[in-house]
């Protein structure tokens, strides 16, 4: 039987990590599907016993989403409207069962190109807080996830939290996911949009697309285009060409690449419309 460590302090976890390679486990909603076995593979460090790692806290300079915070925790947390997109994504992660077990941090550590949390967290300027027995460091989300199924996590390191800076928590937000069925579905394309509008003018915009590149993509050029524009008619600035230029979608069993790029642009326009024309969104 392989070793199974379930410490109740962060220090305990870091001590295990410092000793030898282990599989870090939290919700296990990605780890178990990766094996046909009856048990998890290899020595395991289960971090769900560490009480301090769970939950969302407002703190100096922004918000902190602890590493074992589940999607259900996100849905139930009281958060400003800039997080609405993250809550909307949370409700579309797998199913209620998956939301109860799966964690936000696990979603990014699994580094799937179709991770539901990625575009929202990217549009929230999320940073990843990493600890090892030696030190702690922080990386921007899109540096942390640096390829399909690849992260910048080094041996001996553990993600302890995802942090959202204060300036990204302003405005309203919307997440849209497109799949071939309603629930339990891997995205064909998904978008997250955060708009900070003041006096009818866009002060700040965060736009991100998932499942259309190896890693979720922040559309910085398009954001720059939108900034300073009047909110009315805003979506007309989002062209298929501008969106496609930022993405590298692939053909797979769910859709072809050109469709994905088009769908991303269409979903971005709809998300922006939902945020700038609330009456229409309700209709």
């Amino acid at each position: 039987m392989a070793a199974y460590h379930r410490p109740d302090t962060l220090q305990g976890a870091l001590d295990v990590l410092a000793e030898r390679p282990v599989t870090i486990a939290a919700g296990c909603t990605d780890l178990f599907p990766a094996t046909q076995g009856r048990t998890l593979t290899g020595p395991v460090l289960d971090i769900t016993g560490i009480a301090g790692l769970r939950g969302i806290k407002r703190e100096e300079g922004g918000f902190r989403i602890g590493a074992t915070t589940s999607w259900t925790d996100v849905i139930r947390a009281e958060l400003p409207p800039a997080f609405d997109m993250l809550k909307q994504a949370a409700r579309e992660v797998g199913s209620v069962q998956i939301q109860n077990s799966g964690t936000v941090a696990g979603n990014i550590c699994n580094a799937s190109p179709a991770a539901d949390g990625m575009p929202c967290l990217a549009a929230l300027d999320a940073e990843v807080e990493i600890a090892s027995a030696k030190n702690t460091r922080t990386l921007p989300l899109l540096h942390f996830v640096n390829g399909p199924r690849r992260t910048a996590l080094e041996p001996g390191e553990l993600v302890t939290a995802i942090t959202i800076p204060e300036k990204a928590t302003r405005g309203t937000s919307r997440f849209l996911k497109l799949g071939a069925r309603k629930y339990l579905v891997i995205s064909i394309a998904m978008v997250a949009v955060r708009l900070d509008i003041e006096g009818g003018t866009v002060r700040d915009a965060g736009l991100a697309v998932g499942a259309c590149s190896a890693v979720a993509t922040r559309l910085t050029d398009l954001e720059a285009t939108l900034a300073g524009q009047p909110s009315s008619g805003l979506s007309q600035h989002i062209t298929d060409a501008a969106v496609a230029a930022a993405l590298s979608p692939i053909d797979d069993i769910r859709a072809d690449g050109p469709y994905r790029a088009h769908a991303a642009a269409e979903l971005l326009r709809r998300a922006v419309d939902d945020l700038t024309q609330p009456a229409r969104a309700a209709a």
Partner: protein
Amino acid sequence: MNRATATISLTVNGDPVTLPADPSRRLSEVLREGLGLRGTKVGCDAGDCGACTVLLDGAPVCACLTPLAQAGGRDVQTVEGLQATALQQAFLRHGAAQCGICTPGMLMTATAFLQERPEPTRAEAQEALGGVLCRCTGYTKIIDAVLDAAPGAPAQMPEAGHAVGARVERLDGGPKVAGTEIYGADACPEHTLLVRAVRAPSAPATFTLGDIETWRAAQPGEVHVFTASDIPGANIFGTIPPFADQPALAEDRARLRGEAVALVAGEAGVIEALDLTTFPITWQEADAGAPVHDNRPDNLLIAGVVRRGDAEAALANAVHVAEAQAETPYIEHAYIEPEAGVAWLEGDTLVIQACTQAPVMDRDDTARVLGLDPHKLRIIPAAAGGGFGSKLDLSLQPLIGLVALKTGRPARMIYTRAESMASTTKRHPARMSGRAGVDAEGRVTGMIFDGDFNTGAYASWGPTVAGRVPVHASGPYYTPNYAAEARAIHSYQPISGAFRGFGVPQAAILQEALYDDLAMKAGLDRLAFRRLNALQDGQSTVCGQVLHGVGIAACLDALKGPWEAALASADMANAEGGRFRHGVGVASCWYGCGNTGLPNPSTIRVGITAKGELILHQGATDIGQGSNTVITQICADALGLPVGQFRLIGPDTGLTPDCGKTSASRQTYVTGKAALLAGQALRGRILALSNMAEDARITLVGETLTVTDDRGERQVALRDLTPDGHGYVLAAEETYDPPTSPLDENGQGSPYAVYGFGAQMAELTVDVHLGIVRVTRITAAHDLGRVINPLLAEGQVEGGVAQGLGLALMEEYIPGRTENLHDYLIPTTGDMPEVKSIFVEVPDPEGPMGLKGLGEHVLIPTAPAILNAIRHATGAKVTKLPALPHRVLAAIREAQE
């Protein structure tokens, strides 16, 4: 703090338990194998199906994704902890459990949900249950039950003579909602060996076995290994004996990825831990261009042909001619229960309790492989957690049988989801083309159909598909000139076999596309066009068979009101513009019940013991469709005793006469007719014994039969009568075989004695900027001849519609790529439209009480109705299924050009 080896304590259904178990073990395994709580089902081991849902501190989680360590110190609730709750009763009342394999997961999820939202909306209930897949019900009745979970009055069983037509709850429903039903994976006698298969990683490939003894010796525990050379009988099987071509274990080459080549067996802990990639076998890629079977040099298994009149001449003279192509992919049955079973020896008899739809065929084919006299093999069908055709074929029966025979110990095998999907049968991928023509009045004058059906590596039911398709490809329409050919063609790919409709659903997609074209060209309303061409009583089919009791016109007439309302409402919505376009489509079905021109008898025995027990030997395998209930209803009314008084035995090849296989929509008709005859015969015996009139009333109380007519009352003391060889003092056994005739070289003859008919209408919206289709309503009119049980019939319709919707919009099995339930998509609660069932009763002269089959019919019209509605909404002709968003959008753009 580190609990590497310590015991783990938790509470399960209120009881504290302490387990010396591996903390990283799946909770589902601990519950099932460690604690024997096998009500928690495992469908995928990946969180994709939700069957294993349990409540962890009240919150639903997938037990398969929960390491035992995380349940430590917490409260786990499983279905065994539910004690006849109002929700369970609602599941029975609404017919929410069909095969029942998803029921525990549904119940647990809904229990937690209702705790939080006692009075939910339908949408909320759908979202809450979105994580539990069901392949049988189409979810409608499950959601109905969740919304009606208030305590209700106990179910009333109908009185004597009133069973047929009543909404009788499933007679076998209790164990399904209690979680006590025994499926293939749920029986595990003591000292059972676990069996796993070594499978081909790709195909075609040849292989040589290496040094098995050395490998065996290197394993950490005792491992038995069996290969083809250990098979005592003929290493060949197949559902249709003349075409049998499949080895139980491959001998020197693999024809499909996932083919079994060797078995390992031993103690569960040892076998589970084996790394089968180290098994000593050398694979060599083989020539993919070589024929799959040496005796079929062109890879042609068989071609089916039906020809009547002169189709080419009819098309040449037609006023309008339409032409169409269509392509459909492999479709996976995706029952939630992967194949599983256990075999053991009782004296010199081998007993196999496994999932199946065809116990007697299993017995005969397995006996041949194992070199046994069929009478030394007993098949006890486990409850089937869904079948839909695939469990007609042998899967693990010869494998566990071999291990049990060779070791003398019980042997058990449970397929993983991936091996179930890779190694068992699929719906045939089809490439079809066709033409059809009409005269000036819009009457169809001729049709030509041509189809290649990829039958995969082995014959399975390929001949049946090739035979059924040309018989049915005309649809239920009068087609005086007709030429249809369907070819079953081998490939080094998954075996295509039986799947609800045997190729007819694919053919209907092409034919109904042609019919929409013809209606438009002829300037006729699409429903009216179909009504004009609907087969009438006394007309000939394309096989030259003159039919009576034809209900297609009645079904189309039943849709007239809904059709006109739907068209008006779509027009109104479309007038507003916007990105959503609304469409309405219609399609029909017909389907012959039973084997095509071949005998397929059923035998039913019913008896009364000296103690007054009324027992029905019911050998029709109930895979969720309801045979246990409807066969009993028919027998009850034929006999004249209340349905609630029956006790059922079987199916079990040791205890029940042969009722054939559960396929071809034959059980309610064929076994139902045997049950009718047996019930009537037993009634006749009772009346003769008591010398009472035909219309006498019979009651059975204690050990006394009382027979009453207007002349008086007679009593029969059962214990005074002599029991027969089966232990019955009064009994009857009757056999029924449909009167059919084989087809001649032009496909002319009477292939089926009874046909069922139906027509469905789809209403949907298409998001024209994204190609997303949302089906909002299916109105399904089906001619059942006589409705035996409306509750169960609705369940068949709703479930068939769900599978048809999946076929139309999302399902595509790609070998090696979609061997799981997150890449292979089937509909969830949120994908289902409202389903309105309309039952039409045009009695069939041959069917018992006039009834006709229904099980497969319901799936056939759904996909073509949806595709026709997409075209109506947008002009888009989607010819390659499934109609995924990118394909729909491409078709919309093509239509706009």
